[in-house]
Every structure is written in structure tokens, then in C-alpha cells.
């Protein structure tokens, strides 16, 4: 975290602090009872299916919508109508749709926004923002002539102009080719190192897993929150997968009573899944037992559940609950 941001953050105060926040549109609940805290310099992933309330949450925290319940502090400022301007001065939101003035050039678009933020030294900032998204050579092109991916990059440059403390990115890599998406990922890493808090809304779970310190899964209510590995451990039992050349004649005798092994089941003719409490202890013990039993071991390794598995499991649970 840079020294200025530490000062701005008021020491250890979180960049975002949300308590029981909710938003209704008449009878329809967009999201409710959402609580979390995000520290300065943290990259926080906000995941959820379409219509889960992610964009509405971002708009509420960005003071575009008034919450119907709960409270929040954004960049150290309480979320209240009278603080709207001050909050918006400290944050930046990149909406899912770039929303550029297509008849104006890239620079003219950025100039307008630099002035709206009353940014000092706008020319330098525009230049820096364009270089950050690798668009310096297209500065004078009309936005209407740019591809969808390039427009997305202009929108990202626009979000960087104000040097925000908290940056809300709604699907920042949507429509980008893999190389451009990687560029955005590198930029997010750089911003994190500069102490910028990033609130990343995305459908790309591998992106969230790679970039985010913590993730939250929202499906109208907050379903879970934590580090990606924490969520995996919380939701799925830790397991070892053992493969042998031929099926074991008596697998029960081999796996019973092994250190850190809580149970086992067969997963194919010569594959076995061991439920373990600690893979680091269980793997050597299982290997020794298999060798002692004369088994030809092909592989033994910890089964990895991805963030996608966590996500799908939680959303599936919600669908099941709704059906019941």
C-alpha cells in the first residue's frame, strides 16, 4: 500500500465495510443482508449468476442507488445521500457496458471524464491511463471506430483517470481476446501493488481464482465469502486419488486405519478416493501401505476442486432449495 493510501485509509480502516446491506425495487429483492469487509489493496471477487444482484450491489456502493436496508462505508466515507459526491470522488466504476461517446476520440472521452473528476494535470493522466491499457497509439481515433475489446480498454483507462482508492470493475475482460485479458490481469496486479482496492465482478471463475485474494458468491443473499482455497476446503472434503495398475484384491485392508485417512471408496476399476484430514500425512502413509501390499501404484495425488466446483455446488444447492 502506498503511503498516501495508508494515510487516506486512516490506518487499518477497511476500504469497504458493508453491514446487512439490501436493495429492493418494490416487492422484488435485488439483494439483501449482504455483509463483508475489504481491506485496502485487496482484490475482491464478486461472483454470482445472472440476476443475483451483483451489478445492483456495485451501483448501490457507488451511490447510484440508495440502499433500502443496512449500512456501508466506502473508502472511509459512510454511504449516505449527502456523501455521494465525496464517495464518487474516491472511487471509480467501470460498468459492464463501456458507455463511450462514439463520435468523440479516445482522448476527448478521457478529457471529459478527467474534468468531471477535476483531476489535476489531465493531459499527463490521460497519457498514463492510455499507456496502462496499451492504447496510446489509438488516442486520436474516434471511439466508434474501435472494436468491442478496444472500447473496453478505453473504459478501463477512463476508470483509472481519477487515481481511485476503490475501483469497481464489472466484467472488465468481457469481449477481450486472451492476450488483452492477460494485459488486464497484469494491470489489476499492478494496481493491487499500488494499494488500490479492486472490487471485481466477473463470470470468469478462473480469472477470479487467479486474481482475487478473496471471493464472495452472491445469489440475492451472500452465499459464501473467503479465500478460494478456504472455500474449497469448507465445501468439499479433502481427498486423495489413488490409481493402481490392476485393482487391489482387498482395498479395505490396505486403506483401513491409515494415518489421516477417514474413509475411502472405489472410483473405477483401479481407482480409489480416500477422504483425508491432512493430505501431507495421508499420502506417504497410503503410499507405504500400497507398496507393502505389493500394488503397482500409477499415481497418488490430492484431488483439487476448482472455484468453479465451489460456485456450481452453491448455486446448485440454491436451485434445489428453490425447487423444494
Amino acid at each position, binding site marked *: 500500500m502506498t503511503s498516501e493510501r495508508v494515510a487516506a485509509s486512516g490506518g487499518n480502516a477497511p476500504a469497504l465495510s458493508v453491514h446487512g446491506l439490501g436493495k429492493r425495487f418494490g416487492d422484488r429483492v435485488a439483494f439483501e443482508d449482504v455483509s463483508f469487509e475489504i481491506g485496502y489493496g485487496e482484490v475482491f471477487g464478486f461472483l454470482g449468476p445472472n440476476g443475483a444482484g451483483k451489478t445492483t450491489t456495485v*451501483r448501490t456502493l457507488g451511490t447510484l*442507488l440508495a440502499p433500502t436496508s443496512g449500512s456501508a462505508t466506502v473508502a472511509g466515507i459512510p454511504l449516505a445521500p449527502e456523501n455521494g*459526491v465525496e464517495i464518487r*470522488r474516491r472511487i471509480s466504476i467501470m460498468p459492464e457496458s*463501456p*458507455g463511450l461517446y462514439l463520435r468523440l476520440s479516445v482522448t476527448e472521452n478521457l478529457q*471529459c471524464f478527467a474534468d468531471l473528476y*477535476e483531476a489535476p494535470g489531465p493531459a499527463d493522466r490521460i497519457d498514463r491511463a492510455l499507456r496502462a491499457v496499451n492504447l496510446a497509439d489509438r488516442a486520436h481515433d*474516434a471511439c466508434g471506430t474501435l472494436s468491442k475489446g478496444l472500447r473496453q480498454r478505453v473504459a478501463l483507462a477512463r476508470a483509472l483517470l481519477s487515481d481511485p482508492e476503490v475501483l469497481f470493475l464489472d466484467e472488465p475482460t468481457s469481449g477481450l481476446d486472451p492476450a488483452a485479458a492477460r494485459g488486464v490481469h497484469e494491470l489489476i496486479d499492478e494496481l493491487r501493488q499500488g494499494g488500490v482496492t479492486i472490487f471485481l465482478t466477473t463470470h470468469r471463475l478462473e480469472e477470479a481464482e487467479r486474481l482475487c485474494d478473496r471471493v464472495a458468491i452472491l445469489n440475492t443473499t451472500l452465499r459464501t465469502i473467503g479465500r478460494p482455497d478456504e472455500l474449497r476446503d469448507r465445501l468439499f472434503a479433502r481427498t486423495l486419488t489413488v490409481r493402481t495398475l490392476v485393482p487391489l484384491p482387498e482395498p479395505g485392508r490396505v486403506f483401513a486405519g491409515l494415518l489421516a485417512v477417514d474413509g475411502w471408496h472405489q472410483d473405477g476399476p483401479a481407482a480409489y478416493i480416500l477422504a483425508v484430514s491432512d493430505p501431507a500425512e495421508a499420502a506417504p502413509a497410503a503410499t507405504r501401505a500400497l507398496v507393502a501390499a505389493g500394488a503397482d501404484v500409477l499415481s497418488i495425488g490430492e484431488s483439487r476442486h476448482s472455484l468453479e466446483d465451489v460456485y456450481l455446488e452453491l448455486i446448485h444447492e440454491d436451485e434445489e432449495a428453490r425447487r423444494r
Partner: protein
Amino acid sequence: MSVSRRRVRAIYRKELREYRRKPTIVTGMAILPLIFLIQPLVTVFTLPASAASQLADQNELLYLLGIPALVPAALAAYSVVGERLQGTLEPVLTTPVRREEFLLGKALASFVPSMAISYAVCALFLACVELFAHAAVASALVRGPDLLALLIFTPLLAGWSIWVGMAISTRSSEVRVAQQLGMLANLPSVAVTTLIAINVIHPSLVFALGGAAVLLLLNRLGWRITSATFDRERLITGTR
């Protein structure tokens, strides 16, 4: 509440740049007033010198006050709903811009070209009259008090037309509907100026001062109403 000039200027400048890139916006605005000119010009050109005494009792020139009442309406009616529909409103509203600053920038961007067009059309009319009408008709038609009234009432009528158009624009979800309603809402102003021009309503100094005061008041009221109807939440989500 302090209004940031830089933010107002940012909105205003952005609008002017858009007009420059699409000149049909402004040329479209000028077509209606030019059509407006045809009838009075034809009348004036065909008047014999003997008609000058008759004209002395009328205020034909004030007919041109219909131009500032109508010209800015379409542009102002587009200003908010247009941005909303092209998806550019949300990014602007995520910045620290206050609604008053946004609306002032937009209003100014409608006001400046409208004034330029209104005065240019008036100047064209006067030039045509001086050049092609009988000298007696021209001197009966172009009178100091009427010119003063044109000068003073043009910005007042344009301002009122802009606030009405923008208030409609903040509540509309369709550009064409907003523009039609904007034009319709300004017809009473055109009707009043026409009634004055054809001498159904007899203007006097007191009437002019009263009219100016009412228009000033209406401009202030229009500004207040437009600010009040500008609801970020409804504009973003389309609900409430």
C-alpha cells in the same frame, strides 16, 4: 452547494464536440426557423408602400419570438433520455458530477446554439426586409422597441423552452416521444408571441416588463423542477 465550473464546462464542451461531429444536429435545428421566415417574408415583400401606416400599429417583428421558443425544445428533450438510451449516462453519473452541474452543462449546450440560430435567423430576416421590402414598409416594420423586445425575450423564451424540454427528457424513456412532448409543451409560448405579433394582445411597456418578470420566474421554476425530476436511481434502473 457549490457548482464546479470545470464540471459544467466538461459537459458543455462534450456536447459541442458531438454537435461538431454531427452537424446535422444543428442544421436540423435551423430548418424550422427558416421555414418560420417564409410566410412573413412573403407578406412583407408583397406589401405596397401604402401599407406602411397599417404596419405601424402592429408588431410583426415579434412573430420571430416563436423561434427561440421552439428551436431548443428538441435538443433539450434529447439531452438526458438520449444519453440514457445510448448507455453513456451511467458512466457520467458514477463521477462526482452533481445533477445541477450536469443539467447546467446540458442546458448551456442547448442554449448557446439556439441563441446563435435565433439571432442569426432574426438578422437574416431584418437584412432581407431592409434589402428587398419597400423603404417605407421596412422602416414601419423595424422599430427600436420591437428590436429591444427581440433581444431581451429571445434568451428568456429559449431558457424556458430548454427547462421544459429537459424536465420532459428526465422523465421519458423514448427520444421521439420526449421531443414531440417538448415541442408540444412550448406551443403556448409560440401562441402568445403570435397573438402579440398579430396585435390580438396589445403590448405595452408594463406588459413587456411583466412578461419578462414572469419568464424569469418560469426559468427559475423550470430549473428547480428539472433538478427535482432528475432522479439518478430512476434514470439508471428505469424503476421508481
